[in-house]
């Protein structure tokens, strides 16, 4: 059984301009020990998706759907029970290591608080545990550094502290929301590598959220590509990188500047901007930016599903790259489900 199974998750926000559908019916599973990447541009809904699962949506947001974690539905859980799971069985690392630590408390105080609360450890034990965890994320001299304040740490070090804090209770699932985006490339590499190593050691599952395809190649097993609140393609790392089916995925891959290829002068860019969620185009949401778009794309694209679990939400046939014959619309079971 999957560790986490999400079905038909929807997130919407009430704003003065109207209701924004940030996530529009997402299904996915995370097996134990697996790393799932959720990739997409800003505004694709990838962060809000996990925020909804964690019950951390902003006040004007609401979510529907199911998120079964070890057989219990997180979406229907009372806050008190959810609190026992958050930070303990499911841990989260946020994007900005500079602002997600409390500047007034020492690292020790912030780290021991977690274990004292969740595992009822005494102060001494908690401290020893914190030091051990800092050592695991390779912070030099952890006995001394644990007494310091966040401002005495560099950005990369702070993100390590965040990871150490996330791992304190040995979670089954670690959610990392752009863990390396705010960091230098040199540190980025170290952090992604570290997350991968720690996962292998403890057999935990990881959900990695990012906009950068290159980061994903190193540590992930499966990838979900999101666009404007919808899943447009999913598959294994090899499927997505070597056989991308959806034009958006192809565009994302081509836009990564690469060092290992000698200069192709013009960088490939996906033209245009992500759509305004308040004013979505009808039919395929990627249509306006898609170089392959045809008339048929004004209709709602079907979600094609292959036997191995690869999916693509597009009129282009996953198997042969041809456009689907017009009448095949709705052959797949999920097709048309999202039409309004």
């Amino acid at each position, binding site marked *: 059984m999957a560790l986490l199974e999400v079905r038909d998750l929807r997130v919407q926000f009430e704003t003065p301009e109207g209701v924004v559908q940030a996530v529009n019916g997402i299904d996915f599973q995370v097996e134990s020990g697996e790393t799932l990447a959720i990739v997409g541009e800003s505004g694709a809904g990838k962060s809000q998706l996990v925020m909804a699962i964690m019950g951390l949506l902003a006040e004007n947001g609401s979510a529907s759907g199911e998120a079964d974690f070890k057989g219990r539905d997180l979406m229907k859980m009372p806050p008190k029970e959810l609190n026992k799971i958050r930070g303990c069985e499911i841990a989260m690392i946020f994007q900005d290591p500079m602002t997600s630590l409390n500047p007034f408390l020492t690292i020790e105080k912030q780290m021991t608080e977690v274990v004292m609360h969740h595992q009822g450890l005494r102060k001494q034990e908690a401290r020893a545990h914190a030091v051990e965890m800092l050592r695991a994320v390779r912070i030099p001299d952890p006995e001394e550094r644990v007494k310091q304040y966040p401002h005495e740490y560099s950005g990369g070090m702070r993100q390590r502290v965040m990871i150490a804090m996330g791992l304190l209770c040995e979670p089954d699932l670690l959610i990392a929301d752009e863990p390396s985006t705010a960091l230098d490339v040199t540190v980025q590499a170290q952090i992604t590598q570290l997350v991968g190593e720690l996962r292998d050691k403890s057999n935990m599952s990881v959900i990695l959220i990012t906009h*950068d395809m*290159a980061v994903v190649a190193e540590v992930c097993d499966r990838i979900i590509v999101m666009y404007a609140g919808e899943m447009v393609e999913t598959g294994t790392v090899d499927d997505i990188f070597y056989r991308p089916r959806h034009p958006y995925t192809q565009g994302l891959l081509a836009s990564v500047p690469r060092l290992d290829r000698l*200069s192709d002068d013009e960088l490939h860019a996906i033209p245009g901007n992500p759509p305004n969620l308040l004013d979505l185009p009808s039919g395929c949401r990627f249509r306006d930016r898609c170089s392959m778009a045809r008339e048929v794309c004004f209709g709602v694209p079907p979600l094609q599903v292959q036997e191995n679990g690869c999916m693509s939400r597009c009129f282009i046939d996953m198997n042969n790259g041809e456009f689907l014959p017009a009448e095949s619309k709705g052959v797949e079971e999920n097709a048309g489900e999202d039409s309004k």
Partner: protein
Amino acid sequence: MSNPVLRVQDLAVNFCSHTGGFLRRKERVLRAVNGISFELHASETLGIVGESGSGKSTLARAILGLIKPSRGRVMWLGENLTELEEEALRQKRKEIQIVFQDPVASLNPRMTAGDIISEPLWTFYPNMAGLQVEERTRGMMKMVGLLPNQINRYPHEFSGGQCQRIGIARALVLNPRLVICDEPVSALDVSIQAQIINLLKDLQKKLGLALIFVAHDLSVVKHISDRVMVMYMGCSMEVSQRDALYRRPLHPYTSALMKSVPIPDPKLAAKARQDRWLTGDMPSPYNPPRGCIFHTRCPYKVKRCEADVPALRRMENGDWVACHRAEDLDLSI
């Protein structure tokens, strides 16, 4: 080759801060930029790359005179900018402009796109006719890929990539000859980064601009630079022609930076991971290492590196490097 438009000579910026209590006050000096020299020709792009804290933004600002350098000269078309009076320096900003890192934060949220782009015109040419200003503003918007009918929209109505286009339009509206781009794409999505880089490249070709392009990622500057300077803790480690640098970096630090760039290919990524050797953080800038500033993290260091500071010297192919072992190391990719 023609004369360079910009010649930076031994430029240094120090920041002072104080530690200790009221009575035991001690001054600490941070050498943010430590003796940088380079030349830049018209229509040329120099990429400046380094980790955060390497002084690349400080250098960019010091060239513009936004920060007072503590030493050195910035020669702009034969004139030393560091000696100019404030008003004279301000006039020079017609010729030298900057694009900032955070496209959203660098735009005034209460001004429309049109106001933002035309503001430099109003300040430098207060007598310009309104119609002319508007025409020029619309022209700029078109040039950077915005729709002229978006002229009355506010920054929050634009996406990050579009905001950066506004920032670029504002920098170009005065017809500058040099534009300094301080990490213009690092706050943007990868898919949008490419748009902005291609735009800057096109504009440079069209307008014959000299560009200084600051970034922390070697893969980003690769597509736009003619030459690349690699900075580490305020010092220039290497200045090389683009193709030479990416084929065979001269400095171990350059090679380390290149190896940290993730490769979007699962099969190559595993190998790339094994090749990485740069670990740890930069040493404290208040207490820089003796000798070569990089020796604490360098796997190729020898005794000499701990004692002697390597000077930036010219190699046979004309590129510059500050490493004692540049000749006997082969760091080819």
